[in-house]
């Protein structure tokens, strides 16, 4: 769609994208400058920028609350869920892309259906199940749930990736004496690496950003992920906005960077991989 623009169109275009960027970045700007204010300035309403830039806030948060523990918990939950989702998803996606069997259509349908149900609407049932199997208030419970609720996307994205790779190379490897598992690991997985990495990062981000299940299941402070943990700065009467936002920045920046890295693969996978297949 390269067409010659009239001058006013160019002006309108730049005006539009400038406003767009300002509006989108505004909350992040507020997050940053508020994270830089001192507690005294918090409710001083005459200045947009902090009068004294408190870089120390970014250091103080680590001792003000067990922030480090929360980050580690988020890493364990998101990392564990990602590994589990991929380990279960790869064989399933492989079967769906390379094998013919009865019930394939039904399974695909069930996978698509399951993607429709977020854990929130099932919270009452999830809570009961987790209490029954003694996994409420545990990191393992969150790993299992995040992996399960990301299974649909995992299978969807991986199946799309596998289908786009011709099976000929695997067949050649099998003739050379590889068994199916060997051909999968040695031939298909390396070729599918970009798709697998995209899936890994996407599941990781979903699990990292997850809030509702963790809020419901975790009551022990030492098991809280960062999304729930930042509530410590958010007391009933006293909110430490500067710490809240300083911590939020730490929780946000790595995820945005990861997301930027996979955006192209991800969108192509989401819109074509699963639906057309």
């Amino acid at each position: 769609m390269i067409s010659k623009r009239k001058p006013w169109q160019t002006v309108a275009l730049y005006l539009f994208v400038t406003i767009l960027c300002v509006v989108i970045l505004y909350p992040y700007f507020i997050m940053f400058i508020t994270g830089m204010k001192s507690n005294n300035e918090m409710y001083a309403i005459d200045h947009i920028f902090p009068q004294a830039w408190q870089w120390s806030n970014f250091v103080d948060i680590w001792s003000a609350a067990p922030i480090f523990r929360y980050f580690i918990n988020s890493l364990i939950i998101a990392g564990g869920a990602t590994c589990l989702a991929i380990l279960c998803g790869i064989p399933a996606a492989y079967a769906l892309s390379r094998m013919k069997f009865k019930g394939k259509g039904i399974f695909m349908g069930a996978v698509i259906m399951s993607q429709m149900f977020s854990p929130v609407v099932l919270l009452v049932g999830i809570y009961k199940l987790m209490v029954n199997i003694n996994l409420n208030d545990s990191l393992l419970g969150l790993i299992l749930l995040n992996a399960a609720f990301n299974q649909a996307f995992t299978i969807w994205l991986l199946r799309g990736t596998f289908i786009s790779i011709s099976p000929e190379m695997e067949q050649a490897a099998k003739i050379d004496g590889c068994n199916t598992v060997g051909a999968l690991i040695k031939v298909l997985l390396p070729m599918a690496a970009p798709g697998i990495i995209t899936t890994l990062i996407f599941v990781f981000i979903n699990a990292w950003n997850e809030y509702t299940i963790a809020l419901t299941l975790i009551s022990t402070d030492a098991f809280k992920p960062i999304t729930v943990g930042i509530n410590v700065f958010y007391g009933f009467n006293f909110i430490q906005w500067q710490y809240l936002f300083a911590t939020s920045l730490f929780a946000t920046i790595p995820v945005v960077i990861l997301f930027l890295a996979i955006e192209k693969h991800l969108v192509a996978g989401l819109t074509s991989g699963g639906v057309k297949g």
Partner: protein
Amino acid sequence: MIQNNASKKKNAAASFMPYVWLLPSILLMVIMIIVPIYTVFQISFSEVGRTGKIKGLNGITNYLEVFEEPAFWTTLQNTFVWTIAVVGISTLLGFIIAMVLNQEFAGRKFVRAVVIFPWATALIIQSVIWKYIINADYGSLNVLLRKLGLIDSFVNWTATPQTMFAWECWVGIFVTFPFVTFCILSGLQGIDDSLYEAAAVDGSSFWHKMFRITLPLLRPNLTVSTVLNIIYVFNSFPIIWTISKGAPADQTHTLVTYLYQLSFADGKSGHAAAVSVIGFVILAFCASIYMILSLRREEE
């Protein structure tokens, strides 16, 4: 004979293999998704004590009691307004932004990267930051507008349930439109330029090209983004829970925050489960439409 048996066994094993490959995935989903679905249905038809102990079936009592609550009907109405407004406006806005980002201009990569921000950020963090921005006493929106000379005294942005809910919809739109933008953008980049050139030769107008070329070719992308967004937005919990918790007087709940409050604040698991099932039925209806659409496309 022996050989024959052996190859039969091998065949049986081979035809069994796909299910072995699927097994881990199926186990994970059955235990973590299907079992809770069953439990929600069971609880919704049971009398439940405040401690969560199931005392036995009581038919549709929970449902009838939920229907008697005026808050439930407000919530149901809010849920539809929330889902339709957020998905509808996000789709329109996301579409327009995708059209713009599909143009060549200096700094396009930067703008693309910026649009990713709201999508990648945790909803809870977005919700907290917006709650701070619109705070009536010291919120940064008031500070900014006063500095710019647009207002003299601070505005209470969330004075009524309606304005509160409107702000929540705004935050919903803010986090939802990037997904639409990227779905559309990926579709736009797949459209062959020669189609537009041919249309230009024929002297087609902008709208003609839009409705005859762009929109039909983007249909799959629009379907995916709309359907997934309906599901996400319908189920979105952190925004409303953080900004208003349904207040004032249960006027700004959607189904998911309402059921959360019923179950985990009011100790009415039976009612919460009934609300879950109602939400579940609405979602299942949407999901089956989506499944029919996507399976039909698979056949094409």
